[in-house]
């Protein structure tokens, strides 16, 4: 173990800590943003008392969650009841490591480093695999609460998630066909030319729309949030969870939203590519890296805003409409997209 390896490991730990902190902060402020934006859409103001304009509200909520009484149902299966939010949050957080937050930049005192935590050959498959494991959190939560409403909510939610996982994966195959690789950093680098017109959203509009719809269904958000709607099954699979375990589920849902937005940004909106940054700053410099990271964050925030906007605007699907839509419409359209993309790729090369 020489100094280079040790420095590498230390750097990775620092990167993981920074990413974890940033993700938690962004997710906490997304909750606040959702409450305020939803309020403005609905003609009211939202929480603006705590701190300037409500900026300290997430910390007040965190304090409330920590101090709340933790109620555990008597006849629940204890081990699984405690394990379920852990699985949900862990699967949500584990996908964070493969996203490229910025290009290779030169940071003073350290050298040129790529701005992502890990880089490996099958990054996109890894993301799909980890989100598949996240379904277990919801299923086990619904079952272990020993409550028939939770069980129904958990089963419906997991049936919805596994159905839309297929459409999600198939919509990404178009991007993989265009890029020729599963490595997310190479996919972002391929979208660098033509001043922003080579972003895959212009080359794959149908794939982008399918991905967005499937992603909203995967994260159980409106209009696909029947399993956890307040007026339907009490609160769905997290009815019997209180205080910190509920906070973990809540956190897992928003981190999933964030993850899915980051994947959309990386694959379709060009990741850290900002249209004229290369001409202004030159590759590999610190300013280019900074502009890239800020551009990435702005694109992700746009997707989060889109999620909140949809929540304020659309009514929700009934469960049989949801399943029909996923299996009978979205899956064939995703297959059609693959067929078209493959044909065009062969014809044009």
């Amino acid at each position, binding site marked *: 173990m020489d100094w280079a390896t040790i420095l590498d490991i230390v750097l990775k730990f620092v990167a993981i800590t920074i990413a974890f902190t940033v993700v938690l902060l962004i997710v906490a402020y997304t909750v606040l943003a959702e409450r305020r934006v939803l309020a403005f859409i609905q003609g009211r103001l939202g929480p603006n008392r705590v701190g300037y304009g409500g900026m300290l509200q997430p910390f007040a909520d965190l304090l409330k969650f920590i101090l709340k009484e933790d109620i555990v149902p008597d006849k629940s299966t204890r081990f*699984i009841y405690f394990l379920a939010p852990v699985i949900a949050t862990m699967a949500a957080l584990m996908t964070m490591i493969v996203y490229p937050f910025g290009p290779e930049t030169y940071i003073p005192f350290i050298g040129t480093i790529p701005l992502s935590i890990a880089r490996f*050959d099958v990054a996109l498959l890894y993301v799909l*695999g980890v989100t598949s494991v996240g379904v*277990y959190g919801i299923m*086990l939560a619904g079952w272990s609460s020993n409550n028939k409403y939770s069980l129904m909510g958990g089963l419906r939610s997991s049936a919805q998630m596994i159905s839309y*996982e297929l459409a999600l994966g198939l919509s990404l195959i178009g991007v993989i066909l265009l890029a020729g690789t599963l490595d997310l950093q190479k996919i972002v680098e391929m979208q660098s030319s033509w001043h922003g017109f080579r972003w895959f959203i212009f080359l794959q509009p149908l794939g982008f729309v399918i991905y967005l719809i499937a992603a909203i269904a995967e994260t159980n958000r409106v209009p696909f949030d029947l399993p956890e709607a307040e007026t339907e099954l009490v609160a769905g699979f997290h009815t019997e969870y209180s205080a910190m375990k509920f906070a973990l589920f809540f956190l897992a849902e928003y981190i999933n939203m964030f993850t899915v937005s980051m994947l959309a940004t990386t694959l379709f909106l060009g990741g850290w590519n900002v249209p004229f940054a290369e001409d202004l700053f030159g590759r590999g410099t610190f300013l280019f890296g900074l502009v890239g990271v800020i551009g990435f964050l702005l694109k992700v925030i746009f997707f989060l805003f889109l999620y909140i906007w949809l929540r304020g605007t659309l009514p929700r699907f009934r469960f049989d409409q949801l399943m029909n839509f996923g299996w009978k419409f979205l899956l064939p359209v995703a297959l059609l997209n693959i067929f078209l993309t493959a044909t065009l790729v062969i014809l044009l090369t």
Partner: protein
Amino acid sequence: MLVLLFILFAGLAIGCAIAVVAQRNPLYCAISLIGVFVSLACLYVMLAAPFIAAVQVIVYAGAIMVLVVFVIMLLNVEQEERRRSRLGFLVPVAVVLAAILIAEATFIIWFVDRSPVKPLSNVSDTGLTSSIGSALFTKYLLPFEITSILLLMAIVGAMTLARRIKEIPPGGAVVPGAQVLPLHMFDPTIALDDTRAVAAHGSNEVAEVMGVPDDHDPTKRD
């Protein structure tokens, strides 16, 4: 370092596998099986096969075990009770067979260790996605296509089996959403006080049997 990781993942896999067999609650068994699959995926990564590892997690841990957990939850499989063991004579047989298995495995490992053929290094090209992809579509194209037809046959077979109107066995469970009707409705020769039941999938089947027009439109709210 690699040896430590191997011991960790292999130990986890063996521990979870023993838990699958030894647990009494079937859901704990299913979760332990998921643990086995994830440990195997980690072992695949150590063997320079990242694609197989990712596909193992997606297919086995993410799809097949979801199906198994669904079945356990829907059918409400109960905890096993401790039963009096009635097959005491099989224990020495099991010990002898296990000893034979361990002897075989030791012999194989010792023999491979002594052979002059050098094993491939840990860094190889075979496990990369591009190598697997090109092999699947050139050298192994026929098995690939036949496997996909096999899977299609399985799906069609499952759908066909699930669609028939059939009698519910005593103590059997019904899929939520099916209609449960007396057998007399389908076969008028059966006596009226025969309480055996039949499951029909959908109001159109029921309407067809009862001879009434089916004007239930599922797209309109009732």
